Structures are given as structure tokens and as C-alpha cells.
């Protein structure tokens, strides 16, 4: 199970991104296997299940782990970078759909609004800051709880007078919160 | 009791506000009031120094009131040194309460007004209108 979370400012600039995997087993066989039927460049998980998004320091894109993916393409160093870029593009591409849908609904949680290959896009609109989550299995309830969690964390960050809506979030504590919530809910 | 007028004297002794609320006392030119306020400030400062052995713990204050034929004045000194002087008819009652009310209006309408410069003449329509209401309720 791979996930990619992006928080996008009202000016459509990226505020925060994080890719992570979950350890929970997939729900049933209907979920898309991330390595079999789709091009390998669009996945985050190597065959051994290692998480490409993390290392000990919590940086999102780290080329060190590229080595594990070297088996897949041969261009070991560029793979995580490429994956990250693709996820960024998918997330921002889906902004159009998000804006279209939010005009006519009062729901904060917009589930499964877009698809791109094996990625499903869900979004959460609290105010004019958008949380976009790319996931490869359906898990509506878990994702809803996850969104509510990160929303609370985000509001706490926002209440900091030294933070503005358009400031990228660099707090490692925020990242840890999200990882913890992902572990609980996803 | 009738209130004839109110002066506000700044810490430095300058008259920053003066209004007349009755026509019992003959109106004075502004310069005269300025001089009178300056004299009052001086007397207040001198009287504050006249106690030879002040009782420890009790703050030494200056002139508190003065009386003339048919009218008098009461001085109220704030902790920050601003003086309110009320000119009133005799006999008087409830002056302390009135001065507290004036102080409250001053704190609200003058000190919380961003367009007021401390120690400068008070130029607040809110202050004037609130005082007017207060005084007409007393004088009525």
C-alpha cells in the first residue's frame, strides 16, 4: 500500500508532501497490485516492501534507497526523484477536479475524485487549503480518519502566529504526527 | 450640586482639556484658564512637599480641594500623575464617585484611542460626548 500526501496552498503552491507505505494487508484481492500490471516507475514500493520515502532523518526524497529499486530499471539514482515528480503531477492535476467538485458540495471529504493508472485521488478541503492523498487501495473510512487527524495538526500549525497560509511546512514534528496517524488509520 | 467645569492637567502641568458645563462662573479666556491650571499644578506640587514627617506607607498627596464663595474645586490625582479638577457648586456630595467615573471615561476614550498622544491636548469626540452625558445627568 503506497500513499502520497500533498498539502496545497490557496495559491496552488505546494506546502507539504510526504510519501509513505502502510503495513496493513490489502483489503481483498480486488485491490490493485502495485507492481504487477502497471509500469514500475509509478510505484513507491520496492518488491521487498521498503519505503522509499523515508530514511532516519525523515526527508521525503532520498536517493540512498534508490539502490533497492535499481533492479527495476537500472537507473538507480533517478527513480525516487522520478516517482516523486509523477506523484506531484498527479496531485496537482487533480486540483481541477477538486475545485470543480467543491463548488457544488459542502462535504469536506471528497473521496475518490480522480484516477491515474493505479493511483486513486482523494481530497479534503477544510478552508481553501487542500489536502490531496494519492492511494492505491480503497479504504474510505481509514482515509477519512486520517484526514481528520492531519486537519487537526494542520490547524495547530496554522495557529502559530509565525506561520502563514502560504508558508511551506518544514516541521519534522508535523511529519511525525502524520506518520503516526497513517500508522493508526491506513 | 452643579458641576461648573472640568480641567484635565497633564503630568507636566499643561492643561490638556477644559470644558465648562454651566454658566454660573464667568467664562474666562483660554489663556487665563491655562495660567490658573498652571498655578494649581504648582500649588499641588508644593503642598505635596509640605509634610515634614510623612507617615511611612501612606502616600503623600498634594492639594485635594479648595473653596471660594459659593463654589469650590476638587483635585483628583491619578497614579500616573494626571490631574482632574472639577469646579462645583457648594455644598457638594458624591464628588468622589463622579471623579471615578470621569477617570473611567478618560481611560476608555482617551487612553485606548490610538489617535491620542500622551501629554498632548485631548481631541476625542468620544471623550467629550461621554462627559457631556455624565455632566448633564449630574447637573439635571
Amino acid at each position: 500500500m503506497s500513499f502520497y500526501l500533498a498539502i496545497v496552498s490557496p495559491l496552488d503552491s505546494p506546502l507539504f508532501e510526504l510519501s509513505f507505505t502502510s503495513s496493513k494487508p490489502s483489503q481483498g484481492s480486488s485491490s490493485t497490485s502495485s507492481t504487477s500490471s502497471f509500469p514500475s516507475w509509478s510505484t513507491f514500493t520496492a518488491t521487498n516492501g521498503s519505503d522509499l520515502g523515508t530514511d532516519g532523518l525523515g526527508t521525503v526524497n532520498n536517493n540512498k534507497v534508490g539502490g533497492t529499486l535499481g533492479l527495476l530499471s537500472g537507473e538507480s539514482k533517478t527513480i525516487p526523484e522520478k516517482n516523486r515528480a509523477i506523484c506531484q503531477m498527479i496531485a496537482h492535476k487533480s486540483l481541477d477536479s477538486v475545485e470543480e467538485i467543491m463548488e457544488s458540495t459542502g462535504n469536506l471529504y471528497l473521496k475518490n475524485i480522480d484516477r491515474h493508472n493505479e493511483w486513486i485521488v482523494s481530497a479534503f478541503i477544510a478552508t481553501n487549503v487542500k489536502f490531496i492523498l494519492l492511494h492505491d487501495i480503497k479504504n474510505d473510512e481509514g482515509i477519512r480518519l486520517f484526514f481528520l487527524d492531519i486537519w487537526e495538526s494542520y490547524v495547530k500549525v496554522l495557529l502559530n502566529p509565525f506561520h502563514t497560509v502560504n508558508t511551506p511546512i518544514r516541521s519534522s514534528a508535523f511529519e511525525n504526527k502524520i506518520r503516526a496517524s497513517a500508522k493508526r488509520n491506513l | 450640586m452643579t458641576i461648573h467645569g472640568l480641567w484635565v492637567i497633564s503630568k507636566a502641568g499643561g492643561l490638556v482639556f477644559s470644558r465648562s458645563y454651566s454658566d454660573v462662573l464667568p467664562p474666562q479666556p483660554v489663556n487665563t484658564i491655562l495660567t490658573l491650571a498652571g498655578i494649581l499644578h504648582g500649588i499641588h506640587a508644593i503642598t505635596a512637599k509640605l509634610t515634614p514627617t510623612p507617615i511611612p506607607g501612606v502616600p503623600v498627596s498634594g492639594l485635594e480641594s479648595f473653596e471660594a464663595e459659593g463654589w469650590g474645586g476638587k483635585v483628583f490625582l491619578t497614579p500616573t500623575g494626571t490631574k482632574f479638577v472639577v469646579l462645583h457648586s457648594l455644598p457638594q456630595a458624591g464628588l468622589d464617585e463622579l471623579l471615578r467615573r470621569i477617570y473611567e471615561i478618560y481611560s476608555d476614550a482617551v487612553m485606548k484611542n490610538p489617535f491620542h498622544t500622551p501629554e498632548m491636548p485631548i481631541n476625542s469626540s468620544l471623550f467629550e460626548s461621554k462627559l457631556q452625558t455624565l455632566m448633564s445627568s449630574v447637573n439635571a
Partner: protein
Amino acid sequence: MSQSIGYSTTPPTSSSRFSLQSITSSSSSSNTTTNTPNPPSLYSTTNQNPSSNRRESARSNIIPSGQGNSSLQQQIFGSNNNLIIQQQQQQQQYVNILDRPLNKSKNSEIALSSWAFMFSEIISYSQSRVDSVTDLEKRLSSLGYQVGQRILSLILLRNTQTLNLKDPKREYRLIPILQFIHTQIYKFIFGKSADGLEKSSESEDEYMLISNESPLTQFISVPKDMSDLSCEAFTAGLVESVLDGLDLPARVTAHWVGDQYPDTPQRTVILIKLDGKVMDREEVLGK
């Protein structure tokens, strides 16, 4: 412990240090650094503080094991002990903002006076950095805008959490949003809802929020040469950011209309002029 609790709130004062020194010098010590036999002056006390401190810290090592300390020792060392506890408490207070409960301050209010003084300073500060009334209003408005962004997020989150909504919602139609501002937002900030919400009779895309006496600016009287300034520009910016946050771009301005209403001389109108896009969308969504 009761004796040592007495020390816990205050760090050891010079007098307690002094008493410590006199006690030690009288009871046991031959190694005091005093050369003068009688050190009553403040100067000599402060001078000898380092040595007495060292002694305190050296002895404090004994304390954890010492159950049967005499009351005298407790008195002396209690202060030191409790200092350590204080430090620990202080460290515990440095909790990450993300771990702090969000609703602790839910029902707390701040004194109007403290706000009034701060707002007064904000205006004076801004005024010294602008050239014109328009710029001053812009500055106040942008400050209000930042406040509004935070308040909107917080209110939405709290509403969701208190009602424990499974599927949280927000308003997305024009009129409910305006009512949300009129009641909920105003109540959150000012403790009461706005005094009126009206639609402009002149144009379709203008709405007005009316307050007869705003707590924010009730103590302010604007000098005559700046008579077109309204310090409610702060509220206008706040309203604008809430509208923006709910995807209703608008231009919001504040206007003082007290001269037309003798009963409420501080009456202010927050004029909301909605973006054309909003009106188009409302038309598509229908009534």
C-alpha cells in the same frame, strides 16, 4: 515537606542565603570565606553567595537518601531541591504545539481593555508606517485577514469535533455562508452576533454586515482630518479572509455611517462586494 513547599514558588532570596550562611558558620564551618567576623552588610552577603551556592549544591547530593533530615536541613536544602523540580516542570511545559490540546482555550476570553490597548498600539504602529488613510486601512485589513484565516480553520475544526460529525460539512452557498459569518464568526470573536445582515438595494452583488457598536473600536474616536478612516477595516479584512476561505472571493470594506444614525453614533457597515465569479456560480447552482 510542608516547610520546603513554602520555598517552591520563590527562588532563594538573598536573605535565605544569608541565613544559611549564618547557620553554617555558627554550627560547623571553619572553612567559611569570611574574613570579617561580622558580615551584616548586603555587600558582603552578595560577595559570598558563590561559596554558599557551592556548598548548597554539594550537600544537595545527600538529600535523596536522607529520609530523616532535620527540619533545619530541610529548610536549607528544600529550596535547592524545589528548584530542580521547578526546572523539570519548565521542561515539561515545552510541549510541541502539535501535542497540545486544541480546545483547552475554547471558552477562555481576554479582557476587552487589554485588547483595546493592544489594538490602539497596533493602529499607532501602523499609522507611523503609512502615508495615507487608504494605506492604513489596507494594513489593518491585511492584519485582519490573517486573523480570519486562523479563526475560520479553528471554528470549522471545532464544530466538526464537538458534533463528532462522521462526514464533516461546510457551507458552500452564498446566503448560508453570510449567515455563518453573521452569527458564528461574530459570536466567536465579539461574543455576540452582528446587528444586521442586509442586501444592498442598489446592486445584486453587495451585502452589508452591520454592527451598531463594535467592541473592537468602541473606544476610538477618529480625528476630523481622517474622517473617512474606519478602524473596522480590521474586521473587514477578517470577513474577507473567511469568505476567501470558503471560496467566495469578495472585496470587503468598512464604512462608518454613524452620522446618519444619531441613536447609534458608532454604527459601522461592512460592505461585501462579491466577485463576479461568485454570482455566476450562484446562478448555476440555482436558488
